[in-house]
């Protein structure tokens, strides 16, 4: 990735410390990360590796303890307006939609947040987006509980796309879904590629491998390894990355040798 276009996201030395029960927990410990425009970067790692925290900081839901984040060249800190360029897709598709607001209005509210106040125009845009993610036209007036988990995640994707964000943070967007639905949502996210940059956070190596241009492996708040997807998958250098790859279940391949599982590596 040696092209001349400046990165849309440029993170340097990002640290985040949480205080819990009097103890300081270092969630992120000097993370460097760049994301080119319309690039999809997979962030992988086990639970607690800090991968969600990066996304939440980028989306403005958490504040960094230290480090520097530049979004389209602008310092993110203090610039609340810049945050509208980031949208997020959450893990739990039901909790990410307001149970008492029709879907159309939720997209209208999202657009309203970035200054589009014309309700009629916003609803028209919402209808167009919902059609694009494969939902029936009457979805506009319906409520979240009337949809299946996969449909709800489609709605969440439509909502995230509505403001034409520069970056979408997708935090485990398929891990709460049925395996049969997962593929459809991943397909949909693949269609998004080329429109926006995406930070795809997941512990599912198979999903990451199928979607992302580059992979960044995170372990205990530190970047262990980063590189193009093909390179990480076929030739992982770090033992932790190898352990994550070993954990992918495969059909018709017997596991041979002493191949360590992530649990053994961490123990």
């Amino acid at each position, binding site marked *: 990735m040696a092209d001349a276009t400046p990165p849309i996201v440029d993170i340097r030395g990002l640290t985040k410390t949480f205080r819990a029960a009097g103890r300081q927990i270092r969630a992120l410990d000097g993370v460097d990360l760049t994301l080119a425009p319309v690039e999809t970067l997979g962030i992988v790692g086990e639970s607690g590796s800090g991968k969600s925290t990066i996304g939440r900081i980028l*989306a*403005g*839901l958490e504040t960094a303890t230290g480090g520097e984040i530049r979004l389209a060249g602008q310092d993110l800190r203090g610039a*609340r*307006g810049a*945050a*509208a360029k*980031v*949208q*997020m897709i*959450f*893990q*739990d598709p*039901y*909790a*990410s*939609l*307001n*149970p*008492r*607001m029709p879907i159309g209005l*939720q997209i209208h*509210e*999202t*657009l*309203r*947040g*970035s200054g589009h106040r014309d309700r009629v125009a916003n609803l028209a845009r919402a209808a167009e987006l919902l059609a694009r993610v494969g939902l029936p036209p009457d979805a506009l007036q319906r*409520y979240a*509980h*009337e949809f*299946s*988990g*996969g449909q709800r995640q489609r709605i*969440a994707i439509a*909502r995230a796309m509505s*403001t034409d964000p520069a970056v979408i943070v997708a935090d485990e967007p398929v891990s*709460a*879904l*049925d395996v049969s*639905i997962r593929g459809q949502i991943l397909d949909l996210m693949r269609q998004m590629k080329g429109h926006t940059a995406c930070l795809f956070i997941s512990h599912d190596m198979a999903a990451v491998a199928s979607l992302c241009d580059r992979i960044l492996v995170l372990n205990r708040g530190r970047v262990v390894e980063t590189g193009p997807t093909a390179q990480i998958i076929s030739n992982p250098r770090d033992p932790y990355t190898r352990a994550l790859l070993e954990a992918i279940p495969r059909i018709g391949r017997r596991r041979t040798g002493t191949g360590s599982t992530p649990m053994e590596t961490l123990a």
Partner: protein
Amino acid sequence: MTDTALPPRRFRLPAALRHWSIATGAVILAVVVLAAILAPWVAPYDPFRMGSGPRLSPPGAAHWFGTDELGRDLFSRVLLGARASLGIGLAAVVAGLGLGVSFGLVIAFCPARLKGLLLRIVDVVYSFPDTLLALALVAFLGPGAENATLAIAISLIPFYARVTYGLAAVERAKPYVEAAQIAGTAPTRIMRVQVLPNILQSLIVIGSIGFSSAILSAAGLSFLGLGVQPPSPEWGSILASGRNYIARAPWILIFPGLAICLTVLSFNLIGDGIRDLTDPKGRRRRG
């Protein structure tokens, strides 16, 4: 989990009236409200006229609830007293709920440190019993029905604020609120458009609980001569005027006392019933 998530539990009036405690409460409340509205027309005597009958005469055909120490018809006075009691209760609950809910929402959206401080302040005020707080406020504001209403409203704020905060804090942590934050929606709009509709149902229940406390406080203040001023009838002030005759004419205390009791009971029954019906852990069918 894809298709099994429950729809939001909605509160439907016809279904609610089949719930025994809501139905009972609603019937009692309807009688009290009708009495308050229709008092001038259904009262058999002028509630202010002295000597409508013999002084301190016991309940009977001529005077259903008996007469008081000035010979005023007690039934007529209790009927008209419902206006003052319910009116003060309603005004105080509406004002207290409005302010309490606003405070609670604002606290839920405050940064951590300020939130801690505001919550401690609310807790300190909340630790005073409602009636005591209202009493202290009236002592400061001066006696009278309006000041009593204001004092009761203020005394309800900590309770409403605390409960609202608890409900709003739960919602605030949910991804749909975070999505609105990310979208750049102003906090006040998130409170109003996203959070409030999702906690409204619980607030209705809480509102009805505060109502009974407000009516008790109103009666208490009037009993102490700080609320509705004589000769205007109010249940608490009727009680106060009758306390010197408790041995000779207990009906002066029994009937307004019963009125307070039943009204408070009706609100508690309705509140409990609504809570039952809207309990997300499944509806407990009783009766």
